[in-house]
C-alpha cells in the first residue's frame, strides 16, 4: 500500500506543486489548508478566502481530498501572543519559525497522523536527507530560496515524519512543474509579508493592546536626544523613524523596555562579535572547536563563528568578524557548510 501524506497547502505555488510532485511519485496525498487568523472585519468571517479557494482548486485538479482545518486558537496562543509579547520585551520576533514549530510540525502533524497520514509535507525549500540512521536538514539547492533557517527548532525525532520535496528544485523549476500540472497557482505572486499583518506591525501591536507610550531616545552616554511614541516601534539597526535632529545618522542600538528607553548610536556601534542564544536546539552534538557558519537573521548570508556552552540550552556565539545589527528575538542558526546543525534565539548581545 502506498504511503499517505498530508500536504499543508497555503494556496501558493510552492505547496501546490509539492502536492503535485508527491501525487506523481505515487504517494496517497491529501491537502489541508490551515485557517489561522481572522482579520476581524466581519463577525463570522474568515481570512485569506482567495488562498483557500486556490488551494481547493489545486486539490481538485490533482484529484486529492482537501480539507480546511481550524487552527485559529492554537495560532493565536502560540504565534500571535508570542509575537506581541516579544515586542513587549523589546525584542524583534520571528513568527514564521514559531508557526513552523508549533502549528505545522506539531498540531498539524498530530492531526495528520490521526487522519492516518504517514508523513506531513510542506513547500519549504529545504533538503531533508538520511545520513546513516539519522535524518538531517540541509540548505536547499536553490540558495536564494533556502528556508532551512525557519526550521532550526524542529524536534529531531519528527524529521522522519516530514517530506520536503522542493529541496532540490529551483523556484523556476517549481513554477514550470506547476504549469505542467496546470495548477491555477502556477503564476501566483509570492507572499513575503507576515501573514497575519495587514498594514504594518505597529498598527497591529496597537490593536492587540500594546498601547503607545511616550519615552526618551538617548545616546550611548544617556543624553536625551528626543522622544518616541513607544519602544516597540523600533528594531535594532533601524534608522528611519527617529525624530532626532543631531546632524548625523544614528541607529537603534539597544531597547530597554523597563525604562521605555531607546538607545541610539552611530553605525559603527552596531557591529558586535559576541552574543548569547537561548532555547537552543541541536540536530547533532556541537563541536566547540569548530568554526560554523551562523546566520543571525533570514537575510543574513552567514559568517564564521564558534560556539561555547554557557548553561543548559544557553550558548555563547562568537563571530570571527563583527556583524551588524545582531538583534535579540531573532534566531541565530548554525550551519556546517550546508548542513543545519541547530540554532537558538538571540537573548543578549555584548
Amino acid at each position, binding site marked *: 500500500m502506498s504511503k499517505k501524506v498530508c500536504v499543508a497547502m497555503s494556496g501558493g505555488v510552492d505547496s501546490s506543486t509539492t502536492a503535485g510532485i508527491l501525487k506523481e511519485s505515487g504517494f496517497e496525498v491529501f491537502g489541508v489548508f490551515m485557517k489561522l487568523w481572522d482579520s476581524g472585519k466581519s463577525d463570522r468571517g474568515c481570512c485569506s478566502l482567495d488562498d483557500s479557494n486556490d488551494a481547493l482548486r489545486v486539490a481538485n485538479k490533482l484529484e486529492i481530498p482537501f*480539507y480546511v482545518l481550524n487552527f485559529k486558537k492554537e495560532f493565536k496562543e502560540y504565534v500571535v501572543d508570542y509575537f506581541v509579547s516579544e515586542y513587549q520585551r523589546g525584542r524583534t520576533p520571528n513568527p514564521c519559525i514559531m508557526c513552523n514549530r508549533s502549528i505545522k510540525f506539531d498540531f498539524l502533524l498530530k492531526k495528520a497522523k*490521526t487522519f492516518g497520514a504517514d508523513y506531513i509535507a510542506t513547500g519549504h525549500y529545504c533538503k531533508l536527507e538520511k545520513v546513516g540512521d539519522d535524518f538531517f536538514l540541509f540548505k536547499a539547492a536553490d540558495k536564494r530560496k533556502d528556508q532551512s533557517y525557519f526550521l532550526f527548532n524542529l524536534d529531531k525525532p519528527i524529521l522522519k515524519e516530514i517530506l520536503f520535496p522542493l529541496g532540490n528544485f529551483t523556484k523556476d523549476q517549481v513554477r514550470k512543474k506547476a504549469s505542467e500540472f496546470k495548477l491555477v497557482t502556477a503564476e501566483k505572486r509570492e507572499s513575503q509579508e507576515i501573514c497575519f499583518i495587514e498594514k504594518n506591525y505597529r498598527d497591529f501591536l496597537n490593536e492587540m493592546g500594546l498601547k503607545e507610550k511616550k519615552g526618551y531616545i538617548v545616546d550611548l552616554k544617556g543624553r536625551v536626544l528626543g522622544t518616541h511614541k513607544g519602544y516597540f516601534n523600533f528594531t535594532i539597526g533601524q534608522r528611519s523613524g527617529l525624530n532626532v535632529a543631531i546632524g548625523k545618522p544614528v541607529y537603534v542600538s539597544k531597547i530597554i523596555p523597563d525604562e521605555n528607553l531607546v538607545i541610539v548610536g552611530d553605525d559603527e556601534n552596531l557591529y558586535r562579535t559576541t552574543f548569547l542564544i537561548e532555547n537552543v536546539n541541536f540536530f547533532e552534538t556541537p563541536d566547540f572547536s569548530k568554526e560554523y557558519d551562523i546566520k543571525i537573521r533570514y537575510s543574513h548570508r552567514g559568517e564564521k563563528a564558534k560556539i561555547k556552552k554557557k548553561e543548559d540550552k544557553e550558548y555563547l556565539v562568537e563571530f570571527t568578524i563583527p556583524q551588524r545589527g545582531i538583534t535579540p528575538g531573532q534566531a541565530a542558526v548554525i550551519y556546517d557548510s550546508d548542513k543545519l546543525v541547530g540554532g537558538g534565539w538571540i537573548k543578549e548581545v555584548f
Partner: protein
Amino acid sequence: MRKVYFDHNATTPIHPEVKEVILPFLSEKFGNPSSLHWAGREVRAYVEEAREKVAKMINADPSEIIFTSCGSEGDNMAIKGVLMGNLKKGRHMITTVVEHPAVYRTCKFLEKFGFEVTYVPVDSYGMIDPDDIRKAIRKDTVLISVMYANNETGNIFPIKEISKIAREYGIIFHTDAVQVAGKIPIDVKDLDVDILTASGHKFNAPKGVGFQYIKRGVEVLPLISGGHQERELRAGTENMVGIVAIGKACEIAMETMDKKSKEIGELKERLEKGILEKVPDIVINGHPEKRLYNTANISFKYIEAEALLVMLDMQGIAVSTGSACSSGATEPSYVLQAMNLDPLCSRGALRFSLGLGNTIEDVEYCLEILPPIVEKIRKMSPFYKK
C-alpha cells in the same frame, strides 16, 4: 470507494423526474414568459402550472406564491420587505437565537439602520417557549420571524402556537420553512402564517430556486424591484428551469411524503440506535420527539467534530458539523452554544441528515466505519481517559 451522502439538510440530489421535466427548458423552450409571441406564450403556462403545484403542496392559493432564487432571498424579502413596508407601525421585530444566518444576519444588518430586534432564547433541547415570544412583544412590534425547523438539530418549533400569539396582537408572522418544505406536510391555512419561505434544493430541485408564500393582504415590499414579474413583488426574468423544477419537486413531495418520511425515518432511527449501541459517551442533541425525521445531531464527547468529519469523508461518508466559515473551516456551532451545551459536547457534534437515495446499506456501512474512527480519535485526545 463507497460514497454515502448524509448531508441532506445542506442540499439534496436532483430527483430524476425533476431532471426530466427541466430538459426542454435547457433547449427548445427558451422563451421569456413575459414576451407576447409564441416563444413567450409557450413557457408562460408552465410558470403558472408550477405555481399551482407549489400552492397545492402547502394548501395556498396560487396567487399567494412568489418564485424566488433561494431561501436566503425569501428570508431577506420577508424581513426587509415587512419592516420597510410597515414603518408607520413600528421598527421592532422578534426572532430567535437559533435562526439560519439568512435571518440572523439580516436582522443584524437592519439593526444598523435603526431597527430593533429581540432574540428569544432556547432551552437545553434547543426549543423555544412561545411565552417568551409573547413577553417580547411591544407596541411597535411589526414582525415575528421563527424558523419552522432548525437546520442543525432538526427541532420542529411550535409554529401554530406562535402564529396564534402573532394574530392576537395583529403582528405579521414569518416562518423560514426551508428545512421543512417537501419533508413534512405544510398547511398554511391551518398554521395561519403570513409569510413562509422555502428553498428548492432542499427537496430535490436544483439550486437557484425557492418560493415564498405571502398571504393575500399582507403588506410587504419587494426586495428586488424592476419589471412587473411575480405581481411586482419579485422583478427579474423568470428562472424557467428552476420554476419548472420546483413545481415538479412539490408534486413529487406531495405524492411520496408519507412513504418517504416513513422510510427515511426508519433509516435514521436505525442509524441513531446503532451509534448509541456501538459508541460510548455520546449525546443526541435536540428535542427527543419534536424533531425532523431525517436529522440526527450527535455529540461525540472528548473529540473534535472536525477530525471526525475528515475521517468519515476519507471513507466516503458525507456528514456535517454545525457551522463552517466561508473558507470551510469548522467553527463552533452558535446553535449548540445557544443551547448551553457542555463545550465537551458541542465541540464534538456531528449532523447526519438523511434523504432521497439513502439505503439501509448506507446506514450499515456508516455503523461499521464510524465506531473505530471515534475510538481512534479518542485515543489521541488528551481529554479522554479510559
